[in-house]
């Protein structure tokens, strides 16, 4: 298997976590497949069981190869990009805030409607990412939410909930 960098020996231990997750997924797939009834009929002699069985076994095999690769110093290069600075550590606070804002939208979208929840999503996410112009952030959020609501829900018939603003919008 691949050995990109033998110099970074013992470098990225967290990769073993990925191997463990893959193996666990494999076990889960196998357990789930084992409770499937073996239905065989003339137009489907193998039934729904073999595919997940094969997949579960392959997942476990690949997790082992992966672990061997990591043990030999293999490292997956983290993705780069225009706005990505890999010299910094993972900014846990920003990510946690974003996840919170995202979850809030999932909870609020039906009771409050897309216009309100979407505005909050934009404003909150921009705040989490370092925006400190609160009024501007909120204004852009409200504008985007209104434009998308009118263009998509009313113009194109895409399903976006109006929520408590039903009848006002």
């Amino acid at each position, binding site marked *: 298997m*691949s050995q990109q960098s033998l110099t970074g020996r013992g470098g990225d231990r967290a*990769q073993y976590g990925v191997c463990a997750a893959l193996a666990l997924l494999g076990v889960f797939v196998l357990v789930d497949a084992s409770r499937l009834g073996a239905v065989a009929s003339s137009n489907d002699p193998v039934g729904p069981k073999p595919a997940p069985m094969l997949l579960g076994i392959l997942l476990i095999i690949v997790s082992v190869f992966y672990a061997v690769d990591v043990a030999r110093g293999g490292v997956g290069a983290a993705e780069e990009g225009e*706005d990505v600075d890999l010299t910094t550590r993972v900014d846990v606070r920003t990510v946690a805030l974003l996840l919170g804002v995202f979850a809030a939208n999932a909870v609020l979208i039906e009771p409050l409607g897309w216009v309100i929840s979407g505005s909050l999503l934009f404003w909150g996410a921009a705040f989490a990412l370092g925006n400190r112009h609160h009024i501007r952030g909120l204004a852009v959020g409200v504008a985007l939410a209104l434009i998308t609501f009118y263009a998509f829900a009313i113009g194109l018939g*895409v399903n976006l909930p109006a929520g408590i603003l039903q009848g006002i919008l």
Partner: protein
Amino acid sequence: MDNLNALLDGFGAVLTPVNLLIALLGVTVGTAVGVLPGIGPAMTVALLLPITYGMQPTQALILFAAIFYGGMYGGSTTSILLNTPGESSSVVTAIEGNKMAKAGRAAQALATAAIGSFVAGTIATLALVFVMPQVVEFAISLGAPEYLAIILVAFVGVSAVLGSSRVRGLASLLVGLTIGLIGIDFVTGQQRMTMGVAQLADGIDVVVVAVGIFAVGEALWVAAHLRRKAAEVIPVGRPWMGKEDWKRSWKPWLRGTAYGFPFGAIPAGGAEVPTFLSYMTEKKLSKHPEQFGKGAIEGVAGPEAANNASAAGTLVPMLALGLPTNATAAIMLAALEGYGLEPGPLLLEKQPDLVWALIASLFIGNTMLLVLNLPLAPAWAKLLQIPRPFLYAGILFFASMGAYAVNSQPFDLWLLLALGLLGFAMRRFGLPVLPLIVGVILGPIAEKQARRSLQLTGGDPSGLIGGPVAWVCYAIIAAVLLWPLVAKLLKARRGGDHHDAETKTEVSV
């Protein structure tokens, strides 16, 4: 000549005022979104999917074709003006393109990229017109075992050939296949991997997977490592080229096209190899090799043409076989399924109007881009200065809207969050995302073909072997998978103990 007549009919269907307006909207929005830093063509198409939800299939396809080329073009603008490219396919363009921009020749770099994209896109789309129906003719004669074998080649190709690590590619593919397994079995009606959750019974929508992995995953990943000082944008005027630039560009455009189209058309060809080959060729053939690394126009013209031609080439397996070989094609395929169209060899037979309208709109979108982008480049460059908090907040906003709109259920937003975290983890650990998406889309089809093959033999595994086409496919797969082992054995034979084989072969060679 049948093809040309069909294509003319396609033009007839597309050339109405409303459709032209849709195409114009598509190229404009596609370019604008594609230019935004951090958004590649695949994410552009994924984020803009909701626009097409309320449309007729033909109009939706016109919009897709336009967004597709617009997003591609926007991506190359970013890599020239910002240097750090968003997609691996525009890495090579960035090498010389950014050097040119820094030397005050941004206008010429953008011009050769725009005109080169137009030339390559037009020639490659024309090649598509002639090649695709041939592939369909061949594909229709294939039985289930052969089709299964071709899908398996695509699996091995995207996970073990593209990308730098085979284990990581395969791991990503298997996770995708697992996601594809979720839902009710299509024959027996039994629930697989649903954990009793009712919303999972219909499976996870590919659009939700694509938006989660590409858009949400990317936004979270960038948020975790956000560059506090935005990268420097090079100001640019209206793109233009002098006589000398034309003279140095036209041959690289044609050679780049010749590299790009075939690589795009084979499963697992990708755009990385042809862009790189084109760069090496131009460097070798150039009369100004000393300029390479300092901003040689040939180094922008060739790879950019190769990139676009390869993108058009990927439409051959996508339309003829239903096989996606890059992320953008994967998302377009998912969208086709959303309209109740079944991608595969029968698509051209059942829906010829749609397919030819799509191809005609590729020509139209490409031409519009050329007309639009030369004068609008300074405006696009301004988009690069968008405040990053607003940019990534906007991505999350549109991703949430798109995912919710698929089925109108908040449950999909939780799925989107989970998939976004998966996408984050994959970026952190260097797992490629393309194999996952391909696995989600093709996994269920592969299983269907396998079960159909076994039906003919009553469950006897010999049904999977099929005919000569399948044999060739399995030989290719075996060669790819066993290659590292063979290489190691060869090395060991030459250099003794394989642990220090590398140093020894260096000595012996």
